[in-house]
């Protein structure tokens, strides 16, 4: 645990997000606030997990960070540069440095391209390589992700889900990025294959010194892979802490409920556990209620929760929470 804190303190920020908002128009005069004033910074070499229920804006947040969406307002600074002002070579360079691994390996690979073409497509844009060099590099990458070099001539439909996700990872690695957004990379895979892919991601991170933003709704897998974890609810970040702190002593009532809802593969533990039950469901992100967005489901809701939106504050060292309950203490 000390090592993690030390590592976090010494590293500089590779990505800084300030007051990031991404709103979508949803019909006449209605705005869907997918990401609502999120502040987060990601340190070089760490894995930041981002969890939350579906529709809470995790994916939109990840995509806006790497300029796949234009933010409505707010600033994203990558490696010291504001990404909204990037042009020409700087922009190209940024796109080389950030890559994404998508959720659905069945939909994210072009069915008409061979695996070799899929992996080398990014190299064509960013590097000047001869055909021979390219083929060598593709073979090398395939080896790194645990596939044999022969796969370069196959098509996506010939591969299983786990193999496709490996191709997705190889494609992201092909341009030698610094930062990879892993957008639910394992949720479409089987349990035994999930373990293979997660082991691979951890291995590659150590080998290339990568920084990951790991988006997932599988809380136990996020705990396994992340250094720090952020919890999102309805477009806002409600808690951010190192993974030990977050899972051992969650402070936000929503995080507490989420963690107590994780099913455990152990009948004795399950039987003795107390569940914090959350009533109801996530309200619509279109015109969410003022004040704390979680208050409609929160059993501790107070008067102040309806009036003021709680800010994300550092309650304990490296433990940020947005909740009025924690402010009082």
């Amino acid at each position, binding site marked *: 645990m000390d090592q993690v804190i030390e590592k976090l303190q010494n590293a500089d920020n590779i990505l800084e997000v300030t007051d990031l908002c991404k709103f979508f128009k949803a019909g006449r005069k209605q705005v869907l606030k997918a990401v609502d004033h999120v502040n987060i910074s990601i340190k070089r070499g760490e894995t930041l997990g981002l969890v939350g*229920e*579906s529709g809470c804006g995790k994916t939109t947040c990840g995509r806006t960070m790497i300029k796949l969406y234009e933010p409505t307002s707010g600033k994203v600074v990558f490696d010291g540069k504001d990404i909204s002002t990037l042009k020409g070579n700087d922009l190209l360079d940024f796109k080389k440095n950030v890559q994404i691994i998508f959720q659905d390996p069945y939909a994210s690979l072009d069915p008409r391209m061979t695996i070799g073409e899929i992996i080398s497509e990014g190299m064509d844009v960013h590097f000047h390589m001869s055909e021979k060099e390219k083929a060598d590099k593709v073979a090398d990458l395939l080896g790194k992700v645990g596939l044999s070099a022969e796969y370069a001539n196959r098509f996506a439909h010939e591969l*299983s889900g*786990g193999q496709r996700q490996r191709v997705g990872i190889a494609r992201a690695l092909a341009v030698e990025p610094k930062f990879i957004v892993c957008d639910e990379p394992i949720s479409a895979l*089987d*349990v*035994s294959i*999930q*373990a*293979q892919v*997660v*082991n691979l991601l*951890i291995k590659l991170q150590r080998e290339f010194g990568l920084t990951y933003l790991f988006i997932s*709704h599988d*809380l*136990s*897998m996020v*705990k*396994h*892979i*992340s*250094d720090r974890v952020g919890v999102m609810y309805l477009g806002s970040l409600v808690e951010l802490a190192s*993974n030990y702190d977050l*899972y051992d002593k969650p402070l936000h009532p929503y995080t507490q*409920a*989420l963690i107590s*809802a*994780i*099913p*455990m*593969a*152990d*009948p004795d*533990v*399950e*039987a003795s556990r107390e*569940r914090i*039950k*959350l009533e*109801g*469901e*996530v309200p619509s992100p279109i015109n969410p209620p003022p004040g704390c967005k979680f208050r409609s489901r929160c059993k501790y809701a107070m008067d102040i929760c309806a009036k003021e939106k709680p800010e994300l504050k550092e309650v304990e060292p490296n433990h940020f929470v947005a909740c009025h309950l924690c402010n009082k203490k």
Partner: protein
Amino acid sequence: MENDKILEVKDLSVSFNTYAGEVKAVRGVSFELNRGETLAFVGESGCGKTVTAKSILRLLKPPFAVIKEGSQITCDGKDVLALNKKELCEFRGDEVSMIFQDPMTSLNPTMTVGKQIMESLRIHRHLNKKEAREEAIKMLKMVNIPSPEKRIDNYPHEMSGGMRQRVMIAMALACSPKILIADEPTTALDVTIQAQIMDLMRELKEKMNTAIILVTHDLGVVANFADRIQVMYAGQVMERGTAREIFYEAKHPYTWALLSSAPKLAKEAKQELYALKGTPPDLILPLNCCPFASRCEYCMPICKEKNPLETTITDTHRVSCWLQHPKAPKVKSFYDREAK
């Protein structure tokens, strides 16, 4: 309780005819289900869990899917495979009903949810429109849908995923079936909603004494819910036992692998997870050996020659593995090793 069998499946084999050949999806599965009991089918995708569940309701369409000769399904004394069309209609919904994995696609988008629930009430219980509507409201209330009087006239698209799954449950339980088959009922849902739905199913099970077959790949969901677990692989049952026997005294290397590949909350982060090598066998090819042999750490020569028979360990616990043979070496589960 012991002899209160409600469903008995014997030597069930199901094949799919595809252009590439005959896919033997289920290969000689036998099991029984007692009244009010919960049985879980656990395994990776493509291991035949869903096909087994669907064959009980005869939902698989011939000639594409064929339930092989010699298969037997007996429900409450009735031979399910011999039912004619009319009897089958009465059987489905009245005696056995099913909840599907994806609540987004398994409801009819052009009908209000009320109509969909009323449909089965009117057919099976011969209620008139007004009675059926009242009953449907009662069902929606039972599955904890807020203001059911209004919600009954909603279309599925006006509801969230969790709500739709509740509607599915209401629909399935409308005629108080004796057996409820839940095919991955929470896979498409978030953890908090998953907990709500599992609680709801537990509550309803106790209230109505329905036997449940739960199909899932998530061992976490099963731990606190199932009385008995059946671990399936490549269309066969590898191990079966009570929940405690499977979680604490598992004997099959595949069960060990399943148990260890899920990350533990208590474990140190970023340690390597146990990952099962390789992929499941191709079900088109004939399998005369143990289907797990090619991925098994403890594979012995005999495993590649003959399919093991079930060894009985206790009354409820049975394993299909050559390691149980008296002449086989005694190995310790790596799952136990890890836990300590």
